[in-house]
């Protein structure tokens, strides 16, 4: 029963979701005035997420609490993490929430700049990854290097100055547009079709109970 009930529930919910996508009267079924069945079922997911939030909180407290208790390396950062975690939660829950100036200031002055900083680091990582990827080791990497060179030149004004868009083949910009619109789009769509079919097969495996790893364990 420990396995059969979740498997049956998975099959039923997958079937129900499929029917909601397909059957119009079911999708628009109202259980009472203005309350759709679909939105009510979807709400159960929100409820589960709220429960999950507490699990995350417990896990973080346990992991970092152990680090502090055993004085592991960098334990002081765990203290700081717990202060920020609970401090910000208490500030939001008991001191005005979204209306609180302090709550919003912390978000705007700390979280947003940190987010932007981390995102901007991508530029440096792209440079280091490109350095490795563009090393010419075989025919494929040579091809990739040449194509990347053309696309980069097609995107900057220097490329336009060397070979303008008014000239033969539309210059670097024209070739870049062709590369992106034809070979790139074709391969992207081919991968897209593969992803769709793979995802559908994966859903079927779970719905039919062939794949049971989400129940825990390593057996199929």
């Amino acid at each position, binding site marked *: 029963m420990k396995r059969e009930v979740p498997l049956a529930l998975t099959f039923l919910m997958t079937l129900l979701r499929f029917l909601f996508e397909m059957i119009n*009267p079911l999708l628009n079924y109202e259980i009472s005035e203005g309350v759709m069945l679909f939105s009510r079922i979807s709400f159960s997911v929100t409820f589960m997420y709220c429960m999950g939030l507490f699990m995350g909180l417990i896990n973080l407290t346990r992991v970092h609490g152990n680090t502090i208790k055993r004085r592991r390396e960098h334990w002081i950062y765990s203290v700081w993490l717990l202060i920020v975690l609970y401090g910000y939660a208490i500030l939001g829950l008991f001191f005005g929430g979204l209306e609180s100036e302090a709550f919003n200031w912390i978000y705007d002055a700390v979280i947003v700049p940190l987010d932007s900083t981390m995102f901007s680091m991508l530029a440096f990582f792209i440079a280091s990854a490109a350095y490795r990827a563009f090393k010419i080791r075989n025919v494929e990497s040579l091809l990739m290097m040449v194509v990347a060179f053309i696309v980069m030149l097609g995107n900057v004004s220097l490329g336009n100055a060397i070979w303008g868009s008014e000239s033969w083949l539309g210059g670097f910009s024209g070739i870049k547009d062709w590369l992106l619109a034809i070979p790139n789009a074709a391969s992207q769509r081919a991968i897209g079709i*593969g992803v769709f*079919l793979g995802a559908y097969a994966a859903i079927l495996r779970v719905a039919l109970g062939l794949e049971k790893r989400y129940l825990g364990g*390593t057996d199929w």
Partner: protein
Amino acid sequence: MLNQLVLAADVKWGIFVPDDSTIAGLFLAIGMALLVYVMIQRARAGLPIPEIRRIPGLEAFEEAVGRATEMGRPVHITSYYQDVGDYDTWAFWAYLAHVAKLCASYDTRIINTNSEWLSMTVNEEIIRQAYLEAGRPDAFNPDDVRFMSDWQFGYTMGVAGMIAREKPAANFLVGYFYAEALILAEAGALVGAIQVAATSATAQLPFFVASCDYTMIGEEFYAGAAALSKEPVIYGSVVSQDITRVVFVILCIIGALLNTAGSSLLVDMLKF
């Protein structure tokens, strides 16, 4: 009680949602489900089913865990987008179970980082079970299954920092990723980890190809999840996936020829 407005709407074949490709999608779903059923039945009866091609990235998992064992360093596995109801998460669990089983049998430490609270509990259970099955329940450390943040760059900072501190010898980036993909892969490359990526996120594929030793592209990610089982019954679903893909290629060619000849018959059928 049915909504009167809906009854008046222009539904397809009386009951179906009036969106593009509803009926075509229905036929595709039924067709592929039948194909999966047939292949599974053939596999169960011991009848031959077509072979699926070898995926080099899959073999790299064992190689990478072996290397980590030799070096005495941990193995790290993560997926950013981990919605419990998402098929990418289901595929991720197959890889997690495989890696956890390898780590448990080699007595190698496994670290799993998470951005989702619900999935984290499933991940913890999968890893715990792997250690139990390997006869080493004491070796399982629940502190190594870590929740980072559900905020994208908070998670990224946490994982990149963990990689820099713990220096895993193998870094597995499996699942759906967004802009954090390159940061995680580069963090792994900086500590010299052998890296295997598997994703269906086409926008992140170039970054993984540039930074990782092995990359499983698109449907390889899902097929690999099934192929790990080594069970003919599961293989059946991958074979049906391949057959449907061949049908799609044929349809693409016929559609291109028909469109060139000025007929939109196939496009209209698929859009119905």
